[in-house]
């Protein structure tokens, strides 16, 4: 951390009981209005980002509680804690909340909202009111979902597969579908807002080749949000119509095809995986460049691979249906295309590694989170290749191997990147630095806890433990106990950042404009930024990541 010219707290404030406010903070967006309505009716993208941060954190802990129930129930082979129905409902809550109300909105809606205008030199997003509206739609959808899942209960899993969901499932499938449908509007409006902002509001000189890589990845994500989410919407409408009005579309008795439901669902939901992970890839690029203090290696390839992942991501949905009865020729094509996604993903990992090579690396918390992200994303990606192979997939389909694979991507990848982003941009958002020691400790504990939770699940899956069962043969118990202990560690480690970051809001030292010595327009404005971001609209005249390279001494 460079600590040149830190704005000190004003001495007149030291006697106060409350915050000792710096001059920067006094004119920042955080202090522009103190009433509740100044937050709830704000159109400032930075305040909306904070609203999203609070909301997704809330949903993260709800989803985490459901995960804790699941793991505790799996401690014993008999499933002593929950009934069969209760277990099904618990993993449905976990899946629905984590996918739609944490993973999808987490990085784009908090950090995308906060950073995109700052990174491209704009005063706000293109449609500030729409931005606020999408937060309200998100909250309406989220709280309604929570109510339905807890009060009514849904036992279909987050995938709502027919004919289970349309003909057999008990509980409030229709209401849950309506709630997710509502949340989808929020996704579409946010994606639309980001795309228009990135196209139309870049400051003079901010050409496409000078965009920060985080902006590129959010751009790719937004394209998926706008094009894939409506397909989920219509799919949910079809399910609701079947349950409510008997207008069967997937009903086999009428000659309908339940497999068609899976095609429509995964046409959205596989790209949705990239909605979840692409922003994380963008965060990793920023964190790696800032930590290595070097220009990112192969900028154009890292940027282009985000777009490539978004495009190929639309063409691989069939790999969820290898054993569902689709044509083997279709499966072969989907298998090939799924393997092809590894190419742009691999480009990113190799380019990050090349960026770090001989970099002047500082072992700050954001870097540790980025390293943890890269490691876990690589394990998740490589096991993804294993699953994309037709013959192996038949063996491990619907086992814990799949569960472990996507948790390595979703939780190991996206959640690590979320915490990395939180730790990296926190001084910018709040204007205070936090304890680096606690930051490092939590990064390491999250990494260890994660691996202890999910690595045993690879073994379980390989040995044949199926998904969605809570009663299992006793020989699997040891690995399940490891996994549950890991989940406990992970739970504690996840609480830590919120504790030390909250503490820093009150007791942290003022951060200064650029605590990490990073490049990028967001670091040229005060921390926390003033309400309108820039005094004068900046002009960009160079490529991004122009660090003065400080090479290590070459011994030998």
């Amino acid at each position, binding site marked *: 951390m460079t600590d040149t010219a830190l704005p000190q707290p004003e001495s007149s404030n030291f006697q106060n009981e409350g915050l000792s406010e710096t001059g920067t903070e006094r004119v920042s967006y955080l202090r522009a209005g103190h009433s509740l309505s100044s937050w709830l009716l704000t159109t400032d993208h930075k305040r909306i980002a904070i609203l999203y941060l609070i909301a997704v954190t809330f949903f993260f802990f709800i989803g985490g509680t459901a995960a804790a129930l699941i793991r505790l129930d799996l401690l014993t082979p008999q499933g002593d804690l929950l009934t069969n129905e209760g277990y099904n409902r618990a993993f449905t809550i976990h899946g629905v909340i984590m996918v739609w109300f944490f993973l999808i909105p987490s990085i784009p809606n908090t950090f995308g909202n906060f950073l995109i205008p700052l990174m491209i030199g704009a005063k706000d997003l*293109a449609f500030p009111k729409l931005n606020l509206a999408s937060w309200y739609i998100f909250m309406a959808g989220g709280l309604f979902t929570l109510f339905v899942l807890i009060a009514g209960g849904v036992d279909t899993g987050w995938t709502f597969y027919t004919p289970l969901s349309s003909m057999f499932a008990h509980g409030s499938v229709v209401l849950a579908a309506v709630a997710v449908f509502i949340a989808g509007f929020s996704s579409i409006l946010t994606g639309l807002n980001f795309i*228009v902002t990135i196209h139309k509001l870049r400051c003079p000189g901010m050409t496409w080749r000078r965009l920060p890589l985080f902006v590129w990845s959010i751009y790719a994500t937004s394209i998926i949000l706008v094009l894939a989410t409506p397909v989920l919407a219509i799919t949910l409408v079809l399910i609701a119509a079947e349950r409510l009005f008997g*207008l069967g579309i997937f009903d086999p008795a009428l000659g309908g095809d339940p497999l068609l439901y899976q095609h429509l669902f995964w046409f959205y939901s596989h790209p949705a995986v990239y909605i979840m992970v692409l922003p994380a890839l963008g965060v990793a690029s920023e964190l790696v460049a800032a930590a290595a203090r070097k220009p990112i290696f192969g900028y154009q390839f890292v940027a282009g691979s985000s777009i490539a992942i978004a495009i190929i991501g639309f063409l691989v949905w069939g790999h969820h249906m290898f054993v569902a009865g689709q044509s083997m020729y279709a499966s072969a094509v989907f298998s090939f295309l799924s393997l092809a996604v590894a190419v742009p993903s691999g480009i990113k990992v190799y380019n990050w590694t090349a960026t770090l090579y001989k970099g002047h690396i500082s072992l700050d918390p954001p870097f540790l989170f980025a390293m943890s992200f890269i490691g876990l994303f690589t394990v998740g990606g490589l096991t993804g290749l294993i699953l994309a192979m037709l013959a192996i997939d038949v063996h491990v389909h619907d086992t814990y191997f799949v569960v472990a694979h996507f948790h390595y991507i979703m939780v190991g990848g996206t959640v690590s990147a979320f915490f990395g982003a939180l730790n990296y941009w926190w001084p910018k958002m709040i204007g205070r630095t936090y304890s680096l020691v606690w930051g490092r400790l939590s990064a390491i504990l999250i990494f260890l806890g994660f691996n202890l939770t999910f690595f045993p699940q690879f073994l379980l899956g390989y040995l044949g433990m199926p998904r969605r069962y809570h009663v299992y043969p006793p020989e699997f118990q040891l690995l399940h106990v490891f996994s549950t202990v890991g989940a406990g560690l992970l739970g504690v480690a996840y609480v830590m950042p919120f504790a030390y970051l909250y503490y820093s809001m009150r007791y942290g030292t003022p951060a200064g404009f650029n605590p990490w010595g990073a490049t990028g327009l967001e670091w040229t404005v005060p921390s926390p930024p003033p309400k309108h971001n820039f005094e004068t609209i900046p002009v960009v005249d160079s490529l991004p990541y122009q660090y003065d390279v400080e090479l290590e001494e070459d011994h030998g």
Partner: protein
Amino acid sequence: MAETPLAARPPYSEPRQQHDAAMMGMYLFLGSEIMLFGGIFAVAAVIRILHPADIVESSRALHYLIGALNTGVLLTSSFFVASAVEATKGGRRRAGATWLAAAAVAGLVFLVVKGYEYGAEYREGLLPLPGADTQFRTAPQHLFMNLYVLATGLHAIHLLIGIVLLSVLAPCLAFGKVRLPDRGILIIAAALYWHLVDVIWVFIYPVFYLAR
């Protein structure tokens, strides 16, 4: 009666930029609408491939002349809306509002005709609504009519939203609530939405009525 254009609102620096952003946002929204109906058309394609003979037979049972009439009504309404946009661009508020109102009335005519058509189908036992006494010779015909109800119903809901939109905008335009030329974008965006709803019908009509 050209009114003086106001400066662009933050975060924009000039009116042109604001206009372009609004247009781009609208086109992206319409893109997402196309993906929404795309799901319906994908299902229509699949069930037709699965049951070609049954689908042709079901399609023959629909009243294609009523559908043709409605297609004409909607295309005419699109002409009205396009005229409203031209009038708005020229600053002719009264003419613009009149064209918008005419389009909204045409939309209502479409819905009335559609309602009559649903009624006829209900009496013929073709409309698979809850409680209806339907007579289908084969199960896939039932499936086809289910999709028909969903597709035309979803389209009707979109049209209804369009009618409400135009009905609100027409008096606003007439009585000067919409500043011209800078807020003329409202009329242009609403018109784009109306055209899209029209175009979707232009695809629904052949896929369901003429697939014989």
